[in-house]
């Protein structure tokens, strides 16, 4: 397929990795921000063909993983209501709340449906005026334009039975939080290419300048990732910190201005709690006052959420890049994709799931579970 196959050439990947190894004179730690990049790196073994001097730290860019457990519990409470058709991206169904997940609500008779696009949820609302249709609107800046358009289309159609449970998160504030964390080891970022396809790159020079950290906008295919790493290492070796774009076929400085205009119309900034990380100021979006009537939190008040995380789960350390998934004592033991303790083990972009599916076992005793069995999905 054009625009994919040419970026997956194995011989070229080895040559780029060798070139990076020649450039690197010392060890460097580079964070790939997006969970999609993490999965591509682990699935393709990119970290294994790089010089051992180069460490890739997996970032928090998995919206499923960072959606707070309180929000999952709220989603579960709304999904249990008999009048509700609860629509979600498939990734969210197995994410553990405090006591159960959306699959269990569905198994107990809740009307929980997986949709490909938020517009599919709007279509269900049109077809079923007798039911309340709620869409779980999570995601980074990449997904937000789709969710914003769902609100816009629902309002244009005069739908009164459609609402969104919004838990949007934003990349740039998270980069600032990582750099300010006392145990931070990140020396350069590979910025999430598809977030930048929407937002452009204008938010990043301020971060580069403030923290003296190189940022390279990077794509998702193996050669894209290696080129992003190569450009980051070139800057690190030269002692430079600049914004660079290694994904120029998709990302422009200005981004998608039509999408940005709709985002500004529908959403407003809000402080957001990140699962495992904590609250980051103005790191999310909620529906703005013009669209508050579509806010499921206001339409379905949920009292008394007593959120509880597994005491064994170290997902927060994984999301901050201070712990590799297979260094967690519960990895492949108490925690597998079938018995997940945290969202990072179930999301298709979670770092723990990436390690499990690639058979990256912990050192030492043999695990329970069956790594590799769920790969290729």
């Amino acid at each position, binding site marked *: 397929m054009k625009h994919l196959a040419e970026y997956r050439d194995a011989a070229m990947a080895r040559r780029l990795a060798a070139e990076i190894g020649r450039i690197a004179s010392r060890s460097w730690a580079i964070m790939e921000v997006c969970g999609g990049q993490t999965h591509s790196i682990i699935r393709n073994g990119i970290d294994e063909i790089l010089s051992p001097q180069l460490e890739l730290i997996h970032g928090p860019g998995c919206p499923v993983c960072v959606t707070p457990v309180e929000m999952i519990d709220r989603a579960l409470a709304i999904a249990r209501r008999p009048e509700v058709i609860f629509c979600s991206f498939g990734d969210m169904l197995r994410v553990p709340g405090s006591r159960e997940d959306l699959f269990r609500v569905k198994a107990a008779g809740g009307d929980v449906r997986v949709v*490909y696009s938020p517009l599919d949820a709007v279509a269900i609302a049109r077809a079923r005026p007798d039911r309340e249709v709620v869409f779980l609107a999570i995601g980074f800046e990449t997904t937000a*334009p789709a969710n914003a358009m769902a609100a816009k289309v629902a309002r244009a159609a005069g739908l009164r039975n459609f609402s969104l449970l919004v838990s949007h998160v934003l990349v740039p504030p998270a980069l600032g939080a990582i750099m300010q964390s006392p145990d931070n080891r990140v020396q350069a970022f590979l910025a999430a290419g*598809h977030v930048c396809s929407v937002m452009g790159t204008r938010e990043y020079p301020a971060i580069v300048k403030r923290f003296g950290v190189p940022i390279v906008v990077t794509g998702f295919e193996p050669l894209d990732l290696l080129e992003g790493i190569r450009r980051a290492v070139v800057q690190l070796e030269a002692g430079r910190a600049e914004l660079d774009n290694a994904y120029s076929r998709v990302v422009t400085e200005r981004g998608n201005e039509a999408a940005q205009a709709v985002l500004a119309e529908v959403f407003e900034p809000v402080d957001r709690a990140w699962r495992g990380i904590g609250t980051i100021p103005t790191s999310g979006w909620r529906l703005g006052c013009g669209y508050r009537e579509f806010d499921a939190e206001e339409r379905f008040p949920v009292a008394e959420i007593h959120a509880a995380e597994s005491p064994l789960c170290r997902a927060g350390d994984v999301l901050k890049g201070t712990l590799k998934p297979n260094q967690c004592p519960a990895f492949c033991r108490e925690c597998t994709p079938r018995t997940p303790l945290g969202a990072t083990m179930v999301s298709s972009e979670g770092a723990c799931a990436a390690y499990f599916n690639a058979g990256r076992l912990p050192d030492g005793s043999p695990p329970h579970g069956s790594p590799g069995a769920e790969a290729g999905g």
Partner: protein
Amino acid sequence: MCLAVPGQVESIRDDTGVRMGRVNFGGVVKDVCLAYLPDVAVGDFTIVHVGFALSRIDESAARETLRTFTESGLLDEQVAELPATDAVTEAAPP
């Protein structure tokens, strides 16, 4: 979650005020919202995420990126073919 797939626009239509289109992903054709790409034309490649086209793929930038890869690769091969010393003038022909 932010994975987006390249596809080629096959047709464009108006669906109750929303710009929609059919996009071909290597043989699989899907309905995609084109509202955020007012200038995209039939035949263009675009990046699609959860049913929305977010960016038109810049063909000249794609060629430039691939040329960079190829040149660094060729350079590597030439370096690898060279004897360890005193062979700079022996660089392989293009």
